């Protein structure tokens, strides 16, 4: 081999590299349409939402009431989700019983159910003439068209996300650590409180944030079960829907706010759950 040969050989990338480069290019090209399709509407919304409208939306009394109602109801939903969902996740992760598989699937149902169906189901159950609602109504408790209905609609569609995530977190905790704790004299509660819970805290937090984001975006079940009343049941998504027909700029501004908040939530979940995977 002459020195010249060696140089030309070096200068020419090997055949395999070209193929690999071409392959990468084609894969990128194939991925592009959907990426563009997903990102362009988001860009369109942000592009149309004017800064001035964004400010006036926060000042506008009806929009401000929608923002504050959304904040209140979703926070309450998350608190209820954690309080009521944690035991369910524990049971699903740790206990064996007949029909567990069925229960597991049923709890996931609200995640895939169209929200409008969830709304009708809630109305037919907790509505004034519903199965349970009629009993409540007899005692003077009426749920539809109230803030409670908003929270219930959110809890229905969002809490399963928390339960499912936390159940996975519980299942991933090393049983030997728990056994070690109980050998050292920890009670069942102490083991749960000081071993199991801290080790699945990230899953709990990630699940809670996902539930919160889902309840923040909840629309279909809310408008059917809770109706639309400014300041009482008109959450941000409802205000956006009605606003789309009355005052497009306010609707766009509220939409942009929801978009940014949702993005921050997703980023937080990614960081938290990413760490969980590394640690787990």
């Amino acid at each position: 081999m002459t020195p010249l040969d060696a140089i030309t050989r070096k200068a020419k990338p090997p055949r395999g590299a070209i193929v690999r480069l071409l392959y990468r290019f084609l894969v990128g090209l194939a991925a592009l349409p959907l990426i563009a399709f997903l990102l362009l509407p988001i860009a369109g919304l942000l592009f149309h939402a004017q800064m001035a409208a964004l400010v006036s939306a926060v000042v506008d009394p009806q929009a401000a009431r929608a923002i504050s109602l959304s904040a209140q109801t979703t926070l309450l939903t998350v608190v209820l989700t954690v309080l009521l969902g944690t035991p369910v996740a524990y049971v699903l992760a740790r206990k064996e019983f007949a029909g567990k598989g069925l229960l597991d699937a049923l709890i996931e149902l609200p995640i895939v159910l169209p929200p409008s169906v969830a709304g009708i189901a809630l109305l037919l159950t907790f509505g004034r003439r519903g199965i349970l609602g009629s009993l409540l109504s007899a005692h003077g408790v009426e749920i539809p068209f109230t803030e409670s209905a908003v929270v219930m609609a959110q809890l229905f569609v969002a809490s399963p996300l928390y339960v499912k995530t936390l159940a996975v977190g519980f299942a991933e905790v090393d049983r030997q650590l728990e056994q070690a704790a109980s050998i050292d004299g920890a009670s069942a509660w102490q083991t749960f409180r000081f071993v199991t819970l801290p080790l699945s805290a990230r899953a709990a937090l990630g699940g809670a944030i996902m539930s919160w984001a889902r309840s923040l975006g909840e629309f279909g079940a809310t408008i059917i079960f809770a109706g639309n009343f400014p300041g009482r049941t008109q959450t941000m998504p409802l205000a956006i829907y009605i606003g789309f027909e009355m005052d497009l700029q306010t609707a766009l501004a509220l939409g942009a706010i929801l978009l940014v908040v949702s993005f921050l939530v997703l980023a937080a979940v990614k960081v938290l759950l990413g760490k969980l995977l590394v640690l787990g």
Partner: protein
Amino acid sequence: MPKIFGAIVILFLGMTSSSEPRAQENPPQEITVFAAASLHDVFARLGEDFRAKYPQARFTFNFAGSQQLLQQLQQGARADIFASADLRHMDAAVASGLIDSASVQIFLRNRLVVVFSPSSSNALRDLHDLDQPGVKIVLADKAVPAGLYALQMLDRCDQTADFNPSFKTSVLANVVSYEENVRTVLSKVVLGEADAGIVYTSDAASVAAKGIRTATIPASVNVIATYPIGPLKESKSGGLAGRFVAFLLTDAAQEVFEHFGFIRRDGGDTIR
């Protein structure tokens, strides 16, 4: 790969324009009608009647609140006909250059009526009872024609000696929800979730309104809804859209409207 691509394109075309091939002299002709929610039942029927004469017509109906339809049209949705439940939204469509003002016609009228849920107290008899404390009322949102008409009607009540001076305020204090179209107002009253609602007579006469009690609103305060219709300038239906509009104005069609609880375009007390 190109085959797959072709298949996807065909799939998409199939989704946007359903074409059922049928042996006929005239090729099938799509007519897309954007119509106010209150026209739901009657347009389905009249579309069939029209097809008896023009079998090539293939209707695609989009029923929603007029305000929502207008927004969709302004954002570029393709349609051949726009039928609004009030002049306000038709005027806006004309102002946006979507419809030629000369081609707009009033084809129908409708009036408001109070509906009471089947399970509501018998003490609730008519409009006057809506200000009683604790009555749960649903109205259409003020963005919806039916909602705006209801507010106008309540304004008139306040100006009449027949009603309490603060009647409107008391009624609005009883409102538990402002629904996004007039049909969901009806649904919530039929379900018994609300005690009372204000809808059109045509809604109260519909099949969906089973079991409800209705109370007419005195003509002195009632608002008559005026329904304008017009073909979109960009319609490519080749005159068939215009023929459908003309068909709606015929005696036969107007009788069907009456049967569904509407007022003929030339009938009734014509306020505005």
